[in-house]
């Protein structure tokens, strides 16, 4: 039974970081959803990633803190850009954010093409190396998320002033820069958006936050279990389970709609 203890000891930090990722990201996900700019998630995550890769380009073996700083600077900058356009109509906002995403992605690819030696670090940042997370990482990240969570509770601002939007997107950048370097762009994006979408399909708006938390938690537990039992890469497994739930919800929702249509037709 010695080995089972080993597995737990190595999986636990990864599991706890997932829990705190869920707490903060699902919250941000619902807020983003309210603003009707879902793509802002991945655009900001991608700009954080771009910033960190630039740190690797400019410095020889940059420290974790320096990489984080560059991620924050870049995501706050792009967050500022996005928040400056939030007053416009939804179609324009979505288009604008799409443009930002395309821009940050292409710039990242260009930077990556110049970074042979460090490209393994960078690759881990994209796909996530959540298994290598240490307890120290867990504590640091959770503290950042806690502070930002409290700030959000204190400054519960009314929507749609430039200041409130800037506050929202810059704190979002702070969170995402830290989480991207720990868990990778893909997992971060999944936590932000997939549980919210799933819950929107199944539950009434009143329960969005609560049910999104539950969905994220359950997919994480199942994902971790499958990863350990079947020896699969952890983050991609969690992501797949999360998305599987989304498709199940989509299926249920389609059947519901079909029934409604039939009822309408018969009456």
């Amino acid at each position: 039974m010695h080995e089972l203890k080993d597995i737990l000891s190595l999986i636990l930090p990864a599991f706890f970081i997932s829990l705190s990722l869920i707490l903060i990201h699902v919250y941000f996900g619902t807020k983003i959803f309210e603003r009707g700019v879902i793509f802002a998630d991945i655009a900001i995550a991608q700009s954080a990633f771009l910033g960190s890769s630039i740190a690797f380009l400019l410095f020889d073996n940059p420290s974790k803190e320096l990489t984080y700083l560059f991620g924050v600077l870049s995501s706050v900058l792009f967050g500022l850009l996005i928040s400056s356009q939030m007053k416009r109509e939804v179609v324009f906002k979505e288009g604008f954010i799409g443009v930002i995403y395309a821009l940050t992605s292409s710039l990242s690819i260009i930077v990556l093409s110049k970074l042979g030696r460090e490209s393994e670090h960078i690759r881990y940042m994209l796909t996530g190396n959540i298994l290598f997370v240490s307890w120290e990482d867990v504590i640091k990240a959770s503290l950042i998320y806690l502070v930002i969570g409290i700030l959000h509770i204190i400054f519960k601002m009314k929507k749609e002033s430039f200041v409130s939007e800037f506050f929202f997107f810059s704190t979002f950048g702070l969170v995402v820069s830290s989480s991207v370097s720990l868990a990778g762009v893909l997992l971060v994006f999944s936590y932000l958006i997939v549980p919210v979408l799933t819950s929107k399909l199944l539950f009434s708006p009143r329960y969005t936050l609560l049910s999104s938390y539950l969905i994220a938690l359950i997919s994480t537990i199942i994902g971790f279990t499958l990863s350990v039992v079947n020896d699969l890469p952890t983050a991609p497994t969690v992501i797949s389970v999360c998305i599987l739930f989304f498709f199940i919800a989509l299926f249920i929702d389609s059947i519901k709609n079909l029934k409604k249509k039939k009822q309408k037709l018969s009456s």
Partner: protein
Amino acid sequence: MRKQKKIASLAKIVLLNQVLLFLFSILGKSVGEAKKIKVVSPICTFADIAKNIGGDRVDVINLSDGLNDPHFVEPKPSMIIHMINAEVVIPIGLRLDMWFFSLIEKSANPKIFEGSSGFIRTYEGVRILEVPEYKIGQPRIGDIHPEGNPHYWLSPDNAKIIAMNITKKLSEIYPEEKGYFMKNAEIFIGKIDEAEEDLKKEFSRFEGVKAIQYHKTFTYFADFFKIKIVGELEPYPGIPPTPSHISQLAEKMKKERVEIIIYEPFRNKKDVERLSKITSATPTELYADCVPQINELKDYISLIRYNIRKIMMSIEGKRK
């Protein structure tokens, strides 16, 4: 309702089965092989060498093989478990297998930390090629070979040095088995000598053939068998080919009459084919590491033989 229940209980049984199977597989392992020395290697080649030397005293596991790029391996939970239980590790070093070092760190197993008795410095005594000169602290654009070319095991001469390094270290940790390890090393090195001589003889009429490689993987191999490497598809190690680099390379290849393009199975074949079309050099897929489940590539000596024969076939097809 009943059907749903049935499905639910079926799902439960399946899950339970999986968990039980998993537990048994762990328990079974620790009971059956209690006394063997646990060795973990990043690649198949080092595992093969360690098996040849350790014989039935060792239980060797390789985490990657010739089908994968040893620079980048996706970590899985089982790999950390192997590290936690390892008594000896045989890393490649020279910053090739950073993922393997991350696994060592994550395992928190002091037996295998760098500098501990269970950590083998595999390339000690190997003459490392292409060690770059640069100023310390300056950012270096590109280059995943910052300490020189780390693909040293593909020269049979270096494989003998690696074998001796492993023998020395295993004998230090388990002095009571020293005689056994030494005898095995002698037999293994004898086998390499034999294969080396045969292959050199077979290949002698092709010596001096010119080749392009995708990545600097086969530099030591080419050095040993007198194949002249004229350039690489990658402008710098680890940096994907750019259009301008490929067109420059094509010019050079035509001028120098390069006959083959060598690359590993996980490289971008489209780049290779495009270059081959412009220059009429033959694409020749080689392996940089053995693959246990493929018979022709099952161990290190098979691997070297496979590569040499593949090259000969390519050139013969071309010169006809």
